[in-house]
């Protein structure tokens, strides 16, 4: 994850805008993953990634509304280039034929990553309102982790087989 943000001078407007961009990025990555799963006939993981995309879009929308109420249509001064993979899973987290469990674990790891981002930024923040927002976002990430964990718990037990169990040994010639 790369972030090019001057946390010390971050205003509440910029912080909200960044939070929206973070949700947008995650939403797009999950949509991308869902499309990759469709393409590779992995429908259950596709369904889960699509659900994650919808959730990220919802959070983004809520944050955008808050931003609108507080700052109207004042121009945005932060850009997407300032954040990278804060809440979006890494590009290589998707795999053909991944199980719903693997898909959920990838999402869980991203929620943990996002929480770590907000925690790491806290000491550098100077503005009390920005700090409160980051604390709120940090706590939300913890809630999201709990939601994914609850979904994981609903799955039937793991077969215990690994990908290697499905690889054919070379046949004797």
């Amino acid at each position, binding site marked *: 994850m*790369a972030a090019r943000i001057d946390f010390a001078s971050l205003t509440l407007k910029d912080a909200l805008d960044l939070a929206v961009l973070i949700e947008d990025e995650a939403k797009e990555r999950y949509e991308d993953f869902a499309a*990759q799963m469709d393409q590779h006939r*992995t429908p259950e993981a596709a369904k889960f990634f699509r659900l994650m995309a919808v959730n990220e879009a919802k959070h983004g929308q809520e944050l955008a509304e808050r931003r609108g109420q507080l700052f109207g249509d004042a121009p945005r001064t932060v850009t997407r280039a300032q954040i990278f*993979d804060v809440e979006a899973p890494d*590009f*290589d987290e*998707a*795999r053909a034929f991944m199980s719903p469990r693997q898909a959920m674990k990838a999402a869980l790891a991203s929620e943990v990553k996002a929480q770590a981002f907000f925690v790491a930024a806290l000491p550098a923040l100077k503005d009390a309102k920005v700090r409160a927002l980051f604390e709120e976002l940090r706590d939300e990430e913890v809630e999201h982790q709990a939601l994914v964990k609850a979904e994981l718990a609903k799955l039937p037990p793991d077969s215990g087989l690994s990908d290697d169990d499905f690889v054919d040994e070379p046949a004797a010639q």
Partner: protein
Amino acid sequence: MSATCEFQAKDYKSDLKPIWCPGCGDYSVVQGIYRALAAIGRPPHEVAFISGIGCSSRIPGYTTAYGFNTVHGRALPIAQGIKLANPDLLVLAAGGDGDGFSIGGGHIAHLIRRNIDITYIVMDNQIYGLTKGQLSPTSQKGRTTCTSPYGSLENPVNPLLYTLAYGAGFVAQASPTDLAGMAAIIEEAIRYPGFAFVNVQSPCVTYGEEAQQIKGLKAISASLKELGHDPADRLAAMDLAQHYGEKMHLGVFYRNPEPPPTYDALIRERQVQLSQGALPKERILDLFIKK
């Protein structure tokens, strides 16, 4: 050439769904290209995107630019022809490490010495992905693959040093560990007036090694900017480029601070000069008729 206008990354995305393996680094590269093209703002029909053969060479099809998925190793000769025939086009070339440094390895030197205004993006995964995991010219020594079952005895090609040594005016490296950085580098490469080379470490999740996946790359990555590297210093760039394979330096290694004229510009100049003393079109036949 049309005036530039507002475009968004999605305007460069075609309806074709990529068939790369899920998780392939090439997904990030195409995103980086969409963003870079949007930042440049040339309409898709003014962009020609040429590739060779390989998983990575499928990339033009996933954009709305004019594309030509050519022959293995031959992206660069065709890209040069296109640029010379229609210099107003923004010409991008792309392909894999095998395409660019094995079968097509002879072409890059000539493109560099001609300095035609083309941006060449190599998706370097240190393997032949499309043909299922054979040794590639950038595979590390000792690497076991189906074509090197006891481990490779060959040293890899160093794409960064190779292009710098031939005199490329712009040499950079990017990776999916930093998409925003990748998009900015590709944009800068396109804006560079002359040949520009971008090596993208783009992991193959199916045949690549664990250490070359995103987590492994993150562990060895270092930003050239944060190291204080001056991209105008070619010798320092060569020094840093020697660490290819051990460290992943991201950013611009070298950008010629005084870009020389491009071949395409020199050709135009020559055409203007020669046309001054040239016979009018209707008298051209006279040259062939004995008086």
